[in-house]
Structure formats: C-alpha cells, structure tokens
C-alpha cells in the first residue's frame, strides 16, 4: 500500500468518525424535540402514564383539534405573523441603518454611543416594562399592533450585532464607490447590504423567533383575546392551579414551530448561496 492511499484511507476514516460524532451530538440535541413532537400526538392519559414512553402507543389528533376548536386559531396565527413579522422588518431596516453609521461613517462619539446602546441591553426588561407600558398607553396603543410593534421597531441588540458584522466587511469596495461619487445611502444599499445577507438573515430569524415565542409582551400589551398571539393564546389552555395540558401545549408549539423551521431551512440555504455569490472569498 502506498503512503498516499493510506493517507487517503486515514482521511476517510477520520471523516467517518467525524460524521458519526456529529450524528451522536445532533441526536442528543434533538432528543427533547423528539419528545415534544411525540407528546403532541399522545392522548391525555398517556402523557401522564407510567411507565413513560417516547412514542405514543395510541396516536391521536385530539390535541390539535382542541387548539382549533377552543382558540380563534387563524386570528392568533395571523396576529403572530403581523407582530413578529412587523417587528422583524422594522428592526432590520432601522438597525442596519444605525449600524452602518456606527460601523462605517466614523464620527466623534460613535464609540460612546455604541457603549450606551449596548449598556441598554443590560437592564432587565422587568425594570422598564411598566414605563414602556405607560408610554404606549399614553399613545393609545394598547390592544393595537402599533403598541406591540413600535417599541421594538429598533433594538440595541440588532444594532450591536450588525455593527460588528459591518466592521468586518472590507472597505475597499465602498471606498472605490465613494471616489466614483456614490452617495452614502447608495453604498449602504448596493454594497454593504448585499454583502451582509447572512448577517441580516441571522438577525431576522433571531428577531422573528424571539417575538413569535415571546409570552409576556403580547400578554401585557393586549388584553383582548382577539389581539393576542398564538403563544399568548396557548396559555388560556392552562388548567386551574397551573396544570398544563401538555399534549395540547406541544401540539400548539409544533404548529407554531413549523413556519419557523421552514423559514430557517430556507434561510440556511441562502446562507451558503449568498456567501458564494458575494465574491468576498
């Protein structure tokens, strides 16, 4: 056997081991998710039964029908989309503008401004919730989408995240464009943004998921059921004394997770594409 082919073989074994190791990690990570999925199809008595089982013995769709019959499901899902989608779109636009200024338009005080913005992440939201609410109420936005969306239309987290990413983009391109007389907005729009697609997608999915799953925010800002989100709506199925109908909760979250998972599948493909097409490598 030549040394070359043995090296190739070693590489192959290495790759195989790598793959197997990743498979084990991924399965461990997935186990709680598998429990969620299977529980959604279990009848009530089986969720609490002993001995416990991973796979339902008796598959049922009852949990799903309960959600559709006991909650204004379509309205809640629609609200979730408008709320999470609205926040995400606004935040992407406003955060990227601000991040561009902070990362690529050097000005005096930019570092101080950044520290202030990042510091605002360090106060727990429990401390500012009531003043925010009073402001929203002042504007008459309780029980409206404005109240849900506008306070989150820009956020320190997104600005910080995008600023770090924009910093890493090479400056050669925009300097060249500047010499050609391109305006800042043009540079932002046609050079920086297209190159930052992975970052924008990452932030977009982060913002969308967090708002979609947020419980307290919609509960506080909407008191009417028809303005709630699917996540806040599901709490209504909690029984007295905090007894949670787990099957229904899992079914509800499964329905909620599907759009997110599909979205991520799409996004992660764009990841590879966008990086391949930017010509940055």
């Amino acid at each position, binding site marked *: 056997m030549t040394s070359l082919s043995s090296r190739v073989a070693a590489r192959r074994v290495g790759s195989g081991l790598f793959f197997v190791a990743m498979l084990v990690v991924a399965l461990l990570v997935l186990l709680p998710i598998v429990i969620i999925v299977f529980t959604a199809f279990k009848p009530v008595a089986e969720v609490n039964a002993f001995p416990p089982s991973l796979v339902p013995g008796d598959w049922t769709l009852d949990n799903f029908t309960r959600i559709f019959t006991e909650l204004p499901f379509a309205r809640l899902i629609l609200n979730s989309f408008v709320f999470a989608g609205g926040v995400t779109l606004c935040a992407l636009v406003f955060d990227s503008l601000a991040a561009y200024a902070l990362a690529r338009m050097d000005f005096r005080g930019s570092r101080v401004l950044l520290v202030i913005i990042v510091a605002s992440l360090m106060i727990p939201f429990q401390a500012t919730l009531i003043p925010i609410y009073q402001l929203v109420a002042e504007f008459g936005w309780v029980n409206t989408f404005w109240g849900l969306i506008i306070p989150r239309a820009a956020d320190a987290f997104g600005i910080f995240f995008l600023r770090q990413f924009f910093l*890493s983009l090479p400056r050669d391109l925009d300097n060249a464009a500047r010499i050609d007389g391109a305006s800042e907005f043009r540079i932002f729009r046609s050079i920086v943004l297209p190159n930052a697609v992975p970052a924008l997608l990452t932030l977009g999915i982060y913002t969308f*998921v967090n708002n979609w799953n947020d419980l307290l925010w919609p509960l506080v800002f909407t008191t009417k059921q028809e303005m709630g989100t699917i996540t806040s709506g599901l709490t209504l199925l909690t029984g007295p004394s905090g007894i949670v109908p787990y099957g229904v909760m899992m079914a509800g979250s499964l329905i909620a997770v599907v759009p997110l998972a599909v979205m991520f599948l799409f996004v992660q493909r764009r990841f590879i594409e966008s990086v391949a097409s930017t010509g940055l490598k």
Partner: protein
Amino acid sequence: MTAPTASRPRYRPPAQLGGRGPIRGRAKRRLQIAAFLAPALAILALFVFWPMLSALRLSFTDASGFGREQYIGLENYVEVFTDPDIVRSMGNTLLYAVLFAPAAIVLALLLAMAINSPRLPLRGVFRTWLFLPFIVSLAVAAFAWQYLLDPQVGLLNYWLQVFGVRIGNVLQDPVLAMPTVALVAVWKSFPFYMIVFLAGLQEIPSSLYEAAKMDGAGPWSRFRNVTLPLLGNTTGFVVIIATIAALQAFDQIYVMTGGGPYKSTQTVVMQIYQSGFKDLDLGFASALSYVLLVATLVLSLVQFFITSRREKDAS
C-alpha cells in the same frame, strides 16, 4: 484585504470634489450620519432610554405603581447590599454565569466549525437540526426536559433502570439544580451563538487557510492564528451577549425550578420579578436592576479589554 480586527486604520472621508467648501461638506456629512441614526435612535430614546431613566428615578422612591410614592434616598440601594437573600442571589447569578456562558460559547464555536467544514456530509441537515432548540419556546422545552429528567415518571430514569442506574431528583437537589438549569440554557442558547459564529466563519477567506497550510501550520495553529483573530468581532459580540444573557437568567429558572430548592437557583432577575410583580415594590426592583446593569457593564468592559489586548498580541 484588511484583517477585520479592532486595530484597523481609521477611515477618513475623501475630500469633497467640486467647489464645495470643507465646512459645508462637514455639515452635510453630519446631516447624513444623523439621517442614518435618526429612526433607530428615536425609537430607542422613547422606548428604551426614557423608560430606563424612569426606572432610575423610581429606584430612589418607594413606588408601588399606584400613584402614592415618596423619595426615600438611597434606602433601596442600601437594602440591595444588606438583604441576605439578595446577596445570595448575586452569588447564584455569578455561579450560573460561570456554568452557562463558557460552555455555551465553546460548544457553539466547536459546532460552528464542524458545520462549516466541507468534510461534513449533509451539512445543511445538521445546520437545521442543531438550530432547532432555538426555535422552540422555552415553556415547551422545559416540559420536554422535565419529561426526561423527572425522578418518578421521567424517561431517562426509566431507560437507565435497565442498567440498575437511578438518577436522583436533579432539579430538586440544591447542588445539582443550578447546573441542570444551566445545561438546559446551554441547549437552548448555543444554536444562535453557533449560527453567529458560522456567519463569521464564512467571512474568513479560505485563501488565508491555504497560505497557513503552505507555511506548514497544523490544525491547532491554523485555529489559533487564523480563525480566532479573524473571528474577533464575532467572538466579542457573542461573549458580551452571552454574558448579558447569563446575568439576566430568568425564564428557564422561572419555569423549571421557580428559584428553588431552598432559593439555590434564585437569581437577581428572579428577585427583581419577585419584588416588582409579587411584592409590588417597584422602587426596590428598579434599584436592584440598576445594580445589575452596573455590574454587567463592568464585567463586559473588563472582558472587552482582555479580548482586545489579546487581539493586539495576536496580530
């Protein structure tokens, strides 16, 4: 190509062309900067900074939220540092941060490199799989973990029974509860950090790795001399975000242990919630929040200086 480190040369705007004077040009530039910042800053000013100032004012009062309030000076702040429960919750929070942040960051970086490696088959599938914990809501995830870990009716105990092994009641054990909660938090949080690292890794030009290889650098040396320094901005972001998340631990503890057993998982933000929303003592909750803010800020700045010095040493 410039290496994206903190020590990049400062950008100087090119001289304006045509007949415009430098003064007008500078004013115009200021206006431009303002235009980029304005929408975001307007929203932050109204819904972030103003509420923060409001909370700062409340921290010097005995406000309950219903109108009657009196200025009581530093009383709330004194209580923060003298109430044994609060002091203990600070210790718990630090313990949680130590258990959570390094584990989550290292795991995220390792897995990001793994799913970025061309040698891994089915990369796209792995990426989606490993990202899933981030998408499920915490309440649901907590249920799944309890279903696994419950000492009486949990799956893990039932499965291990075959081998004669029993895991104890980890969530009700004063020593093990915090590590267990931190484990669940790592599971829930690493995917996002991983994706951030992945985005950062994808920015590193592969030509740099080829060059390092040509110079005879091994995998460790390539990681140390190419990956880490070029990932500086990303790592800085992840470290700060993970630190903030760790010091604000609330959700997972609220749903999994409620602060027990014997307050061993009671964190600062759990205390803030308890004071503000259970005891209706907004003044005290605000004061504690500001103490937390300052502590987080100090910790972050220390980390920032350490990492930026290391970057300088590396480059």
